């Protein structure tokens, strides 16, 4: 509050404000955020999303005089969210403006309504120019000029004519500009850090798990996407793993670039009779706002699998991944960088089947295919133990002849150290199950009515190798009990699970009973 009081004193004494321009940052750090898990294919098709953005930190040097000044920051990212700006090291910040009334042929003319301009005509025969003073009477849709009391429309006559302006109307600028009012206690060189959110950036994570005999190798890729038209060159790039909450309503300012439009009286003489369009159709000014749609050209730039991987460290309750080398995050570009390269990771390949609570029409089921489940424990002892941001895991296994086969992919959530990573891929047809209702019995009446059922599951391993099998039974919120079973189950992931190993060609039958309310 004291500092602000000093500021007020400067202001009230009416000291002139110095105009200080910071042309560009000395250095920039870009950190890319998203909320939740982003699918890379959707990322490539999208434009960034409302809950994904970059966080930019610019270091700039400015020379400030003592007292009040207006510091203009040029060359900030075009997708800046002005409300998110935070500036370190700039003393006495009181007010800041983000201006985006941009200079264009349209705004130049629109801001000249009522002002004097020069109308220069060129005689095509002689090349002679004539310069007349004119007042712009309207720029609503084509310019109407007042030349010494005679009214003419610009560019409707077929003569070579152009407008020449004495100066740029005040308030029009070339680029959106941030200006901050600050009050320095002493003149000197100040190093300031300008931080802000910039929209239209996103990232995603992808993993490739390659089965190599008894272990697998796991490679992680980060895809950085910059859909904005601001590029960052030779920049330390970072991504934030985890899910910071966003309001989803942050957005960049969208300057309305008024296009200069020319409308003349009908010039394309049409000798064929056509229905006349209603002259009442008034072209509203909004409709004339230029819509610039730039098709994003994306160049997925896959770096070769390099031993350089991103550095990861804790940032609060998130993970901060720093790309191994300074990188160019060019405008309209996606880029992939390796961030994880783990070898000899232990894994489990199990065949799994889950028995539902509700049987279709109470009848026997047909032979059921089983799911192939790959499971890695994210532990250092198992060759991993790295925080894994949510993304898509693709599994590449080998077939009987040892050739690599893509077996499937699954999406994973942010996975901290200590938790399993499970990928359920496609169905296996040489391992089969056939569940069967052996007996059903109901006891009690009304609300106390209960049913007891006995289930038999026949499991066949048609493979020439032993397989691990997981049979799971849904329990419907724990209301179903298992009074009898061949061997004890474990309660895991909300289901009762029996784990067994089947020898090559083994056919086994297991039984269990369920007891639960009948409804």
């Amino acid at each position, binding site marked *: 509050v004291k500092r602000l009081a000093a500021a007020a004193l400067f202001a009230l004494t009416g000291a002139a404000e110095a105009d200080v321009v910071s042309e560009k940052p000395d250095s920039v750090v870009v950190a890319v955020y998203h909320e939740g898990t982003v699918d890379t294919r959707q990322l490539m098709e999208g434009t960034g999303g409302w809950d994904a953005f970059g966080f930019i930190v610019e270091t700039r040097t400015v020379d400030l005089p003592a007292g009040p000044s207006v510091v203009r920051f040029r060359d900030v990212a075009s997708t800046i969210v002005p*409300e998110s700006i935070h500036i370190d090291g700039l003393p006495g910040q009181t*007010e800041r*403006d983000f201006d985006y009334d941009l200079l264009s042929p349209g705004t130049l003319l629109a801001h000249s309504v009522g002002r004097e301009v020069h109308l220069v005509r060129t005689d095509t025969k002689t090349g002679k120019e004539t310069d007349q003073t004119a007042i712009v009477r309207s720029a609503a849709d084509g310019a109407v000029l007042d030349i010494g009391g005679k009214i003419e429309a610009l560019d409707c*006559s077929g003569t070579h004519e152009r407008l020449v302006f004495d100066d740029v109307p*005040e308030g029009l600028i070339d680029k959106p500009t941030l200006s901050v009012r600050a009050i320095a206690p002493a003149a000197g060189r100040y190093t300031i850090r300008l931080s802000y959110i910039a929209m239209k950036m996103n990232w995603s994570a992808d993993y490739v798990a390659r089965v190599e005999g008894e272990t697998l190798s796991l490679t992680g890729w980060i895809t950085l996407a910059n859909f904005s038209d601001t590029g960052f060159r030779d920049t330390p790039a970072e991504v934030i793993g*985890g899910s910071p909450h966003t309001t989803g309503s942050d957005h960049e300012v969208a300057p309305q670039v008024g296009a200069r439009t020319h409308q003349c009286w009908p010039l394309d003489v049409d000798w064929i009779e056509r229905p006349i369009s209603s002259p009442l159709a008034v072209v509203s000014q909004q409709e004339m706002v230029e819509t610039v749609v730039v098709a994003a050209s994306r160049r997925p730039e896959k770096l070769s699998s390099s031993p350089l991987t991103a550095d990861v460290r804790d940032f609060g309750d998130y993970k901060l991944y720093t790309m191994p080398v300074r990188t160019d995050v060019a405008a309209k570009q996606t880029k992939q960088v390796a961030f994880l390269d783990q070898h000899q990771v232990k894994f489990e390949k199990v065949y799994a089947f889950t028995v539902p609570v509700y049987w279709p029409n109470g009848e026997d089921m047909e032979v059921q295919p089983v799911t192939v489940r790959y499971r890695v424990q994210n532990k250092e002892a198992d060759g991993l133990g790295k925080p894994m941001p949510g993304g898509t895991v693709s599994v590449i296994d080998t077939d009987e002849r040892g050739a690599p086969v893509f077996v499937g992919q699954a999406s994973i959530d942010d996975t901290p150290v200590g938790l399993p990573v499970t990928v359920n891929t496609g169905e296996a047809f040489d391992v089969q199950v056939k569940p069967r209702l052996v007996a059903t019995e109901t006891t009690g009446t009304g609300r106390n009515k209960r049913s007891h059922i006995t289930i038999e599951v026949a499991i066949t391993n048609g493979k020439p190798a032993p397989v691990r099998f997981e049979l799971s039974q849904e329990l419907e919120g724990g*209301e179903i009990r298992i009074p009898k079973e061949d061997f004890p189950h474990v309660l895991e*992931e*909300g289901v009762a699970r029996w784990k067994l190993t089947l020898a090559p060609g083994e056919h086994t039958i297991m039984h269990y009973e369920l007891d639960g309310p009948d409804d």
Partner: protein
Amino acid sequence: MRGRLFCALLFLAAGTAVAAPPSKHRKPVAPPASSAAQTKQSAPQPQLSLTVYNNDLVMVQDIRELDLPAGRSRIEFPDVSAAIRPETVSLTAKGLSVVEQNFDYDLLTPPKMMEKQVGHDVQIVRTNPATGAQTTETATVLSVNSGVVLRIGKRIEVLRDDGLPTRVVFSSIPENLRASPTLSVTVDSEGAGRRQVNLSYLASGLSWAADYVGMFDDKRGSLTLQGWITIRNSSGTGFRNAETELIAGTINTTSGDSGRHYANGTSAAGMGSQRSAKEIADFYSYRLPERVTVANQQTKQIGFLNIGNARATKRYDYQSYSFDSATEPAHATVSVAFNNADEALPEGTVRLYMRDYKGDPKFIGEQNIGHISAGSDLRLEIGEAFDVTVQPTVVSSESRLHYARYEMSYDLRNARSEPVTVRLRQSSLRNGKVTDESQKSERIDADDAVWNVQIPAHGETKLTATIEIDS
């Protein structure tokens, strides 16, 4: 509250007064020839006052001195906001009665000008392409339908049918065609002379919000909060030296979207203290102490609050809304709790940043808040903890008529290198009892029990609890 904000904003005085002038500084030129003798072009230096609402609505009051003749005259206001809602215009002055009010948006464009010229004469200037010699003829415009048909003497021609350069010179601008949509009011004045005219109207394109940037220091357990009033102007018009009042609250308007929608309710404890007398009136108002200049296409931010080093603590939360098993662990929610001491916070958006290992600020989360009165305990949910997860499992349960029992087990895991405490909240207790538990719970209300569960670094804790519900 208003007093505080007033004080806080006082330092802005000279700052705003010397703001860059908007585009209104133009060379003074004569008014357009079309202005009829009876028409008054209104003076360009009005006394402006703005009441800005946070749902894209502004009430503009424009007070200006006008010299009016006795009897009927027309006043034009070409510099009113381009986003005016003409049906809301009201003009009052002593000894003045409004006869008629028009909002003309028939814009002056070359085709419109030609259409209005039908039946009238124009000058046609032709240039001989071989010699460059100019000939001028008078022509009557017969029609403007897919081409301009002219009568020149006894000849009928189509304008520029030969594609040769042909200039058309008009002697005047047709009446009622204007460079920009213009408000005109026809008044009946009791006598001639200068008088103060008060014009007010609603317009869109201007809105305000409060935005906060908080720098959280986890190690020191402190938070620094800066508050900014953000005024966004995309109305097409700049407002110069306007006395400005900001209104918070939802004002019902008939035109579509009314303002912001909040993703989360304010998670402030001590809700009772927030119910001040002003809240009953459904909105709050803040007056900026000095006049403000807001240019068109500008986002202006005015600092109004600076809370330094408030004590702030981080908390992990997990809430289970029902008695269900989860197939996958869920991340605990991280929140930052602090007390805003003696500063009230107008509703807005709080963005929290934290410094990384290099000292650079980085975003950690944002949340919308409602109006928070001074001295409230405020908790902002910033995000999900990567390394802290909770997975509930129903070990067994039974439900009968008037009775239910749930045996729950919660696996809490912490991959961080320091121990953490998770505030685990089980809802849906419906007046039931916790009959067995591995650690003591706190019953915060009829429906909810809370366990503060400690999890060692790189470790896990299993919490078990049995809940019995008689109904």
